[in-house]
């Protein structure tokens, strides 16, 4: 991909730019006069015909992937008449002549240019060169599908430069091109490069000094060993693996809820730190659960394929969701271990690589035998749920058992009626019924609507609304109160046949929405607003601040519309007989037209006004039915409800609540794992035509792709067999693909640039023999990553300076030949880690649940999910980037800006962009600016920094780049510092705001705020240097 871009840029440079814009033009326009089969014809056949006419599926017995077979023709005879295109059936069918359907069937017709090419080729005698005859297996063997053979290490002229065989391969090619390698990088550069590459962290100033002072000829190798042994090594190398594994902390899709699988992330870190061999690393992740007596760690490892997304939308078809998981598992496996885009074969036989649609579904069948339970999800759907592993400590396990048994005893007690409870219930029932007698209805003296509804007072003192139904309405009701010491006001919402569907509200469903109620007492002393202490109701929703709602009900499910009531408890008893109460009912809703239809107000002086709403509106109608006439169901509902409010059970209920919380608070860690279902039949999968779930085809049984090596003797076609097959020494791809990805991390570009695709459509390797040598070396070294790293970083190739010369830029602008070291902007996580390390804020804690560093408000805003980003406390705010919580639909903004993926799907190769949004982030993101503030305090307070401007500037520069500034750079820094100081001396208020209220890092007296402000800005600049953000 990039190689094409470069070629094009290079073409532009030599002035043939105009041709660039026809980049998607058909091959014809690019063709000179003669037709070349391999260049012009075979690609057309591959793209348009092989799908049905090749070895895998010779429709009409015609194959076009082999010279002999193609010339022989199909059922209806030869299709190519060399020299006579017009008489060739191939051409007829492509043009749709002779009343037959145009080929390719169901595919996009060939362009005129393509057909013209084929005609020209046939007219020219259909020349088909032997090397493209495809006689072996229908497809020429692509280099990547041939097992690597350890190549001979080439001889070079400049033997002195070579440190290990890598250098022979690189230098041999340089010498061929007439280039020489660059000198070794400065030691400061080397230690920063090595530290970033092996641990993802920059070296401390002390570590740099120590390395500079180490005169041992093996100082470099010692440094390599120290860094490889660092526990931060695992963190650094886990990152690219977690991109492949699509590790994240949420399920993805709509609701995107949290999941707990960080134990898997920690497993990866530890596996790297232990230098677990890659074959074992593979087997444990794909099939750890199928190993004999698997350890807990081996189970945790299987989280690898549980990193698939999980759509919790209610309407998702569980079979289809499961199928999509399988698709992801097959594709991810193919990408990581085979460097192959199997996804193509999901819909049709792979057009370019030797994988058939059957191969694809055979692989899918291997993953189709996992354990999964059907579980109800929400109130409307069921989903497949795969296993979760609980990881309690022994202490937690003991406690859990204890709590669980107490809970079940309490639950039993809370639903068992006893004679004592029965009499309590009878008393309770009476109390609720009799409570009505405490209330006196208000006889409205005035009832008006602000919105234009017609309000009419009824005989029973209720008020009925009719006429116009305004969007919003306030009802104002005034009435004399009949008694003194009013403790509460009651609002009854009543049904009425004149209302939509019987009311009690005026919206089309008969519902209402009350947004606020104001109560005022009008006496000789004037008007006084009465404060409301509490609001209670026997139905509906109360006090939803989000919707500015006081009370609303849904009456739509009533068999017969019921009355409902709300009680407003006053702060203190108020009023005397003769006073007037004015009640204003505000009805402003999102939808409008939702006023009360019929309602009644009443008051009480009872000390227990809440008794009236002691049961729900629905149960009240049961309560008011004499016990003998209640149905069994009604009686049961009443009893069930009573048990939830019975005073004598109060302490038990409280205990139960407390216990449930205690159980939650145990904080038992869980993690997602794979499990295999017991089966006697071979696992199978159904082929989905055109890759569409809704088009099932034939059933195939578990197996590995036919054109690659077979399963090992004794291995079954299941996950464990597959895992072993992937890391078999017979697998031509796995070692190449793996070492290539590692190489890419070091040099910014793989030996095969398309590290995600080693197929025929991928890029050719820049150093094919080096790739094969590394691949075989990796396997011979027992699949050890640490040995591979040591090999690469101790090569002279790696140790070169990355400074380019005009000559190198001219001959090899993209450094494909490696005549210099790599220089590129580091990855998102390292950007964060470098800033934290330089400022001294970094927490070096390893592992644990994901953390929540500073994030601006309003980033998380997920449908059907109120989850909030709550900033971590203490050192967890300053953890390495790898520990930042990853929400798939809303990734951490600064990571996303610096090209980190969302972890929704497997990503092999991150792109590397350079944008203004990155500049804004590194300059202004409070997380980064806090680093500048802390770095300033550090520079001004640490002894190592010295006490004068010069030495402090040098120290600050070294914190970021690990090297000393040149005299020119130092002059620039000091001049900059003077300017900042001058400015802030004149703008002390800005200085004060800039250094922050809460000192971060080490504390300093505020008196030095001008100084601090100046150094903060200088630190902000240094943390944004291209060199700070880059690996040189």
């Amino acid at each position, binding site marked *: *991909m990039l190689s094409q*871009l470069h070629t*094009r*840029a290079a073409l*532009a*440079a030599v002035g043939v730019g*105009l041709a660039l*814009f026809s*980049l*998607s033009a058909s091959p014809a326009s690019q063709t000179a006069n003669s037709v070349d089969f391999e260049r012009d014809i075979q690609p057309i056949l591959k793209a348009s015909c092989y799908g049905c006419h090749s070895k895998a599926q010779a429709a009409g017995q015609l194959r076009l992937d082999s010279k002999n077979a193609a010339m022989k023709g199909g059922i209806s005879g030869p299709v190519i008449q060399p020299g006579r295109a017009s008489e060739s059936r191939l051409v007829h069918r492509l043009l749709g002549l002779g009343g037959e359907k145009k080929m390719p069937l169901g595919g996009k017709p060939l362009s005129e240019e393509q057909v013209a090419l084929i005609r020209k080729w046939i007219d020219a005698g259909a020349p088909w060169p032997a090397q493209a005859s495809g006689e072996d297996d229908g497809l020429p063997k692509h280099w990547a599908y041939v097992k690597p053979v350890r190549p001979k290490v080439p001889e070079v002229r400049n033997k002195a430069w070579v440190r290990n065989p890598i250098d022979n391969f690189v230098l041999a090619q340089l010498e061929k091109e007439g280039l020489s390698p660059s000198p070794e990088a400065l030691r400061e550069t080397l230690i920063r490069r090595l530290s970033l590459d092996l641990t993802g962290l920059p070296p401390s100033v002390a570590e740099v000094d120590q390395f500079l002072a180490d005169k041992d000829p093996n100082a470099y190798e010692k440094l390599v060993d120290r860094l490889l042994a660092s526990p931060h090594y695992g963190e650094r190398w886990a990152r690219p693996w977690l991109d492949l594994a699509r590790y994240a902390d949420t399920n993805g*899709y709509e609701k995107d809820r949290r999941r707990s699988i960080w134990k898997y992330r920690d497993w990866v870190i530890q596996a790297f730190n232990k230098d677990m061999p890659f074959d074992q690393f593979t087997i444990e992740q794909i099939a750890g659960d199928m190993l004999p007596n698997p350890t807990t760690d081996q189970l945790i490892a299987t989280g690898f394929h549980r990193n698939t997304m999980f*759509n919790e*939308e209610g*309407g998702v*078809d569980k079979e289809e969701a499961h199928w*999509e998981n399988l698709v992801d598992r097959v594709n991810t496996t193919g*990408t990581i271990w085979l460097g192959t885009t199997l996804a193509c074969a999901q819909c049709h036989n792979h057009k370019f690589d030797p994988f058939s649609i059957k191969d694809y579904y055979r692989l899918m069948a291997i993953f189709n035998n996992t354990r999964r339970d059907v579980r109800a999800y929400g*109130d*409307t*759907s069921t989903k497949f749920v795969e296993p979760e592993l609980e990881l309690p400590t022994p202490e937690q396990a003991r406690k859990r058992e204890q709590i669980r048994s107490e809970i079940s005893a309490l639950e039993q007690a809370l639903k068992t009626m006893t004679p004592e409870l029965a009499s309590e219930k009878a008393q309770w029932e009476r109390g609720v019924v009799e409570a009505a007698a405490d209330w006196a209805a208000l006889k409205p003296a005035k009832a008006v609507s602000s919105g234009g509804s017609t309000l009419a007072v009824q005989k029973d003192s209720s008020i009925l609304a009719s006429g116009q139904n305004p969007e919003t309405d306030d009802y104002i009701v005034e009435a004399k109160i009949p008694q003194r010491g009013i403790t509460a006001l009651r609002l009854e919402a009543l049904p009425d046949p004149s209302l939509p569907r019987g009311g009690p509200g005026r919206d*089309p469903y008969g519902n209402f929405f009350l947004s606020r109620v104001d109560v005022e007492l009008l006496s000789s002393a004037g008007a006084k607003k009465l404060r409301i202490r509490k609001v209670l109701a026997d139905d509906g929703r109360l006090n939803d601040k989000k919707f500015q709602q006081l009370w*609303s009900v849904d009456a*739509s499910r009533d068999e017969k519309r019921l009355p409902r009531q709300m009680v407003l408890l006053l702060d203190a008893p108020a009023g005397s007989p003769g006073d007037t109460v004015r009640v204003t009912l505000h009805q402003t809703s999102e939808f*409008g037209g939702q006023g009360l239809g019929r309602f009644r107000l009443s008051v009480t002086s009872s000390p227990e006004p809440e008794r009236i709403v002691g049961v729900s509106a629905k149960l009240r109608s049961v309560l008011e039915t004499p016990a003998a006439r209640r149905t069994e169901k009604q009686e049961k509902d009443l009893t069930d409800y009573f048990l939830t409010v019975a005073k004598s059970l109060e302490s038990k209920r409280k205990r139960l609540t407390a216990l449930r919380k205690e159980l939650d608070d145990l904080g038992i860690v869980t993690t997602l794992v794979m499990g295999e279902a017991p089966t006697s039949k071979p696992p199978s999968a159904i082929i989905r035509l055109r890759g569409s779930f809704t088009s099932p085809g034939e059933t195939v049984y578990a197996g590995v792709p036919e054109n690659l090596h077979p399963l090992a003797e004794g291995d079954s076609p299941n996950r464990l067999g597959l895992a072993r097959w992937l890391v078999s020494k017979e697998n031509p791809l796995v070692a190449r693909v793996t070492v290539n990805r590692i190489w890419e991390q070091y040099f910014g570009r793989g030996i095969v640039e398309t590290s*995600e695709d080693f197929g025929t*459509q991928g890029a050719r390797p820049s150093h094919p023999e080096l790739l094969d040598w590394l691949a075989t070396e990796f396997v011979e070294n027992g699949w050890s990553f640490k040995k591979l790293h040591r090999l690469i970083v101790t090569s002279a190739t790696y140790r070169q300076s*990355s*400074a380019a010369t005009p000559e190198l830029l*001219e001959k090899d602008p993209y450094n494909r030949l490696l005549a210099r070291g790599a*220089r590129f*902007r580091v990855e998102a996580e390292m950007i964060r880690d470098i800033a934290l390390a330089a400022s001294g804020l970094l927490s070096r804690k390893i592992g644990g649940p994901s953390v929540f560093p500073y994030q*601006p*408000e309003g980033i998380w*805003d997920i*449908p059907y999910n109120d989850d909030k980003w709550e900033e971590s406390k203490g050192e967890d705010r300053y953890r390495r980037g790898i520990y930042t919580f990853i929400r798939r*639909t*809303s990734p951490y*903004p600064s990571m996303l800006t610096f090209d980190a993926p*969302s972890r929704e*799907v497997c990503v092999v190769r991150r792109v590397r*962009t*350079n*944008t203004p949004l990155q*500049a*804004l*982030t590194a*300059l*202004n993101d409070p997380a980064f600016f806090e680093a500048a503030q802390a770095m300033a305090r550090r520079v001004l307070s640490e002894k190592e920094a010295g006490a004068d401007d010069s030495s402090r500037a040098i120290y600050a520069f070294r914190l970021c780049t690990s090297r000393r500034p040149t005299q020119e*750079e130092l002059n620039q820094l000091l001049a*900059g510092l003077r*300017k900042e100081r001058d*400015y802030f001396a004149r703008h002390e208020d*800005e200085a*004060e705001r800039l250094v922050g209220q809460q000192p971060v890092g080490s504390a300093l007296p505020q008196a030095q705020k001008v100084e601090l402000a100046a150094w903060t*800005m200088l630190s902000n*600049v240094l943390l*944004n*240097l*291209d060199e700070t953000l*880059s690996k040189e």
Partner: protein
Amino acid sequence: MQGEQLKAITRRYFFEKSAFGIGSVALASLLNEKLFAGNPGPHFAPKAKSIIYLFMAGGPSQLDLFDHKPKLNQFDGQPCPEELIKGERFAFIKGRPQLLGTPHRFSRYGQSGAELSNLLPHLARIVDDVAFIKSLHTTQFNHAPAQIFMNTGHQVVGRPSMGSWLTYGLGSENKDLPGFVVLLSGKNQPDGGKSCWGSGFLPTVYQGVEFRSQGDPVLFLSNPDGVSAETRRRSLDLLGNLNRTRFSVTRDPEIETRIAAYEMAYRMQSSVPELTDLSKEPESIRKLYGVTPGRPSFANNCLLARRLVERGVRFVQLYHRGWDTHGASNNEDIVNKLASLCRETDQASAALVQDLKQRGLLDSTIVMWGGEFGRTPMNEARSGSKFLGRDHHPRAFTMWLAGGGIKPGVTIGKTDDVGYNIVEDPVSVHDLHATILHLMGIDHTKLTFRFQGREFRLTDVEGEVIRKVIV
């Protein structure tokens, strides 16, 4: 020197593009020569330069807004004919549902006589500028996959969104603003998440940049407290000097790109606040849209979209979420909630078309309005709910488009008597994408990007330009 040489390439590229009549080059590309091979378009003279896509996330009910079915009202409450739903999968409907007539009134408007429900009085004013497609269909019936499909042409995340393809193909015409801007209103972000405007396998510079309605319009645009514009200028001067000094040693052209990126960030610090300050708009315009400056709303976003397009932004996408009117509660039914959503969006959507037209911008700007799928002709009645609502319906739904080469005042496609199936001119999501790209001067089969060994495109392997909707 190589840096100079690469800049020379930059310039040459720039001018070659101009020679093809584009006049500019992607912001991203200007800053990163490695991406220069982006912008492979246009392939022919475009009709439109910009797009404003009003994405109504959740699936607006076509049957209560656009697609009038008197038969449905006639058979309201009758069980749905078996032959329609045999073997059909629904998101929530269980058993045999009942047909549901619309509770809203329909009338004809304008010269074109387009039929609309009374919930859209403002759209009614501009129907003669609008083309309705009543025969859209999709393959997905759940929100997240359907939104991802509508935006990227594939139901699984990982492919570039339409806006990303367009900025990759055409670049932006404003060097101080991103080419693809996203504005959100309503409840939450869309169900499909940020992947709806993600760049998939295209470089991340092509992903949509979210302009937020609260806080900084672009994340981290404001300087930290106490850092004035003057202070920022000083620090960028120092930073530039130090970076240039390093460049003289390493000669890495990426350093020059970084210097340019920081300078553009600085320019954005003044251009973006100016852009998003709606208080400068005259009262008449604010009234037209129904804008209250400072109070985030869909109306504000519509006005902002016009200002973005005026400044040469290629693709502006507005999301307004909440159209998922199942009728499971009062808050998501086709009586109350649908009316309320129309109140939130109708005036501003119509105002946008009207305003673009009066400024002469409508000819070069496509405005498109629609969701990820439609809604069923049957009442969902989830768990026996009495609120009226409809389930997800991928088989037929309506979108409207205006401006930028869209034929005004026409209706394309037709559904059956109850609006269940399409009976005339079906339009797939790929067809819609092909048509939009066509109007932007791009042959959808030629805008491709090589990834994992395959040439990918927005329309996958399908898509036909809908000629009937084009002038």
